[in-house]
């Protein structure tokens, strides 16, 4: 292994190393603070390693991983969100369970899995990364043994993730049987554009279905709301942010390197998935009374929007999708921070009714929450709007460039956004409900711990900054993504 390879791989090594270190720490002390501290230190070190690795170009590390700037960008993003989620986990676990060591080990392993996914160049790495995330996450979802909903969520996630992996692997095996390789680049040269033999088609279709499960695209979204609702708030946060972002990074890379976008059949499949997700996510979210379920459906819809940028392809599509995720992640992180901070011992504060009157009782929290929700809805001056704007820009651009199918996608984006807005507004309106003094929901009277306040402030500011002055971030992202298209 050369020095360059080591530098490039260091973030992943550090993440995995943190997990091992945590195992060793458990032998010395069971202190929650120490465990969380080691996790934070490991994540911070990984973040530093990312910045150290950025200057060098794409570095292949074995046949499995290609660590280029895109991969590092996503790894950095995951580590950043991971730091926030670690703080949340610390707050959440404190006082709820005494067994905290395993949680952080699984958490870091999942994060390492995300980094592997973001840099994988081979189906084996894809599979490995996916399983590192999934196995850790269903253990995490069921982590609280006193919480039946969590266990049920873990069970459902187990089945869901298992099916996704199996489907994906079956597809990869078919492609292997046909082309004799599992490396993305080699597959890219081997698969002729428009190849129509049954093995190739079945293989690709199954891979797509597997990815669809992981991204909870409709119609693969069925159990996602249950998993979101049942899992502890920080774990739901992880599922909603890190695992989605990592899989989406992989999807972008896979399709760019294998040139799958040129397949008309695949285009049709993804376009259908996108439209179905947008409508399913937004329509099913309408009647939910549970915040986590709303977020689950909102994420189904948001993945649909992302697919539009992804389908448009080219540098603009990749930049748009990456920016969209960059703005989407802090918004979700902020929401889950609030959810965690205001949750009681017995029950997470995940009913919309838990927030009735928030605006009168805690105006600052309500303002932050509103900003975050409006970002998810894509209202101007939030990062979500710039993301959606960019997605629409690539969509309209592709439509004008001669693929009229994009008009349908852009139309779905417009209609879907309006439907979705309804359920975000419902939550915002709940903040303004007037409740007689003394009858407020318990959630809104709870104190927000300092750590949560910091995470919330930072993520809200990030959302606003990305919405008001997105220039620098856009430039940075385009510099990092451009590498692929040179």
């Amino acid at each position, binding site marked *: 292994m050369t020095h360059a390879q080591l530098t490039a791989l260091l973030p992943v090594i550090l993440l995995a190393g943190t997990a091992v270190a945590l195992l060793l720490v458990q032998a010395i002390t069971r202190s929650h603070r120490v465990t969380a501290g080691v996790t934070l230190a490991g994540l911070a070190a990984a973040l530093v390693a990312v910045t150290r690795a950025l200057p060098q170009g794409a570095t292949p590390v074995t046949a499995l991983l290609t660590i280029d700037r895109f991969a590092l960008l996503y790894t950095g993003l995951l580590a950043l969100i991971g730091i926030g989620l670690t703080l949340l986990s610390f707050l959440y676990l404190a006082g709820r369970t005494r067994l905290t060591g395993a949680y952080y080990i699984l958490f870091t392993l999942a994060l390492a899995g995300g980094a592997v996914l973001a840099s994988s160049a081979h189906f084996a790495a894809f599979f490995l990364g996916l399983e590192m995330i999934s196995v850790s996450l269903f253990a995490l979802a069921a982590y609280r043994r006193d919480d039946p909903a969590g266990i049920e969520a873990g069970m459902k996630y187990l089945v869901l993730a298992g099916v996704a992996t199996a489907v994906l692997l079956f597809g990869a095996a078919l492609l292997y049987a046909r082309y004799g390789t599992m490396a993305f680049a080699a597959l890219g040269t081997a698969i002729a554009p428009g190849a129509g033999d049954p093995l190739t088609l079945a293989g690709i279709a199954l891979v797509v279905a597997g990815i669809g499960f992981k991204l909870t695209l409709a119609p693969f979204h069925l159990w996602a709301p*249950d998993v979101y609702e049942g899992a502890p708030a920080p774990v739901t946060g992880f599922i909603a942010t890190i695992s989605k972002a990592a899989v989406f990074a992989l999807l972008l890379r896979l399709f760019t390197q294998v040139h799958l976008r040129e397949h008309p059949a695949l285009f049709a499949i993804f376009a259908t998935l996108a439209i179905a997700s947008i409508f399913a996510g937004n329509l099913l979210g309408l009647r939910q009374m549970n915040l986590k379920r709303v977020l689950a459906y909102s994420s189904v819809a948001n993945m649909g929007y992302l697919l539009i940028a992804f389908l448009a392809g080219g540098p603009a599509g990749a930049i748009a999708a990456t920016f969209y995720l960059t703005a989407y992640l802090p918004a979700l992180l902020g929401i889950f921070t609030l959810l965690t901070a205001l949750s009681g011992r017995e029950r997470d504060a995940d009913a919309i009714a838990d927030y009735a009157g928030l605006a009168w009782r805690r105006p600052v929290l309500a303002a932050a929450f509103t900003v975050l929700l409006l970002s998810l809805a894509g209202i101007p001056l939030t990062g979500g709007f710039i993301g959606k704007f960019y997605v629409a820009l690539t969509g309209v651009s592709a439509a004008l460039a001669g693929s009229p199918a994009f008009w349908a996608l852009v139309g779905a984006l417009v209609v879907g956004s309006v439907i979705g807005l309804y359920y975000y507004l419902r939550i915002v309106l709940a903040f303004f409900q007037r409740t007689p003094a003394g009858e407020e929901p318990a959630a809104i009277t709870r104190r927000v711990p300092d750590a949560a306040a910091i995470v919330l402030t930072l993520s809200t500011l990030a959302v606003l900054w990305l919405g008001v002055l997105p220039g620098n971030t856009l430039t940075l992202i385009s510099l990092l993504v451009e590498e692929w298209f040179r």
Partner: protein
Amino acid sequence: MFSITGLLTISGILFVAGAAALITRRNAVAALMGVELMLNAANLNFVAGWRYFWPERLDAHVAVLLVITVAAAEAAVGLAIILNLYRKFGTVDLEQIRLMRG
């Protein structure tokens, strides 16, 4: 000897059988077995691809070993969850465990 078509058909049948078990069986352990069956169908594909098309390459062997290992890990965690499920609900029947709508 089997032909490649035969092998792929068998793996396809295994895969569908696994999926069917997942959908129809209400028992959590059976569902887990369904997942395992699907993974092994994929393994069979790898082996078939190696045997008939790419006998000089070793990727398939590595892939199969990898899958077996990871599937074991998955089964281990899965069984642990099912154990907890049983402790909490007194049953592993997925139909009866429905705290949440969906």
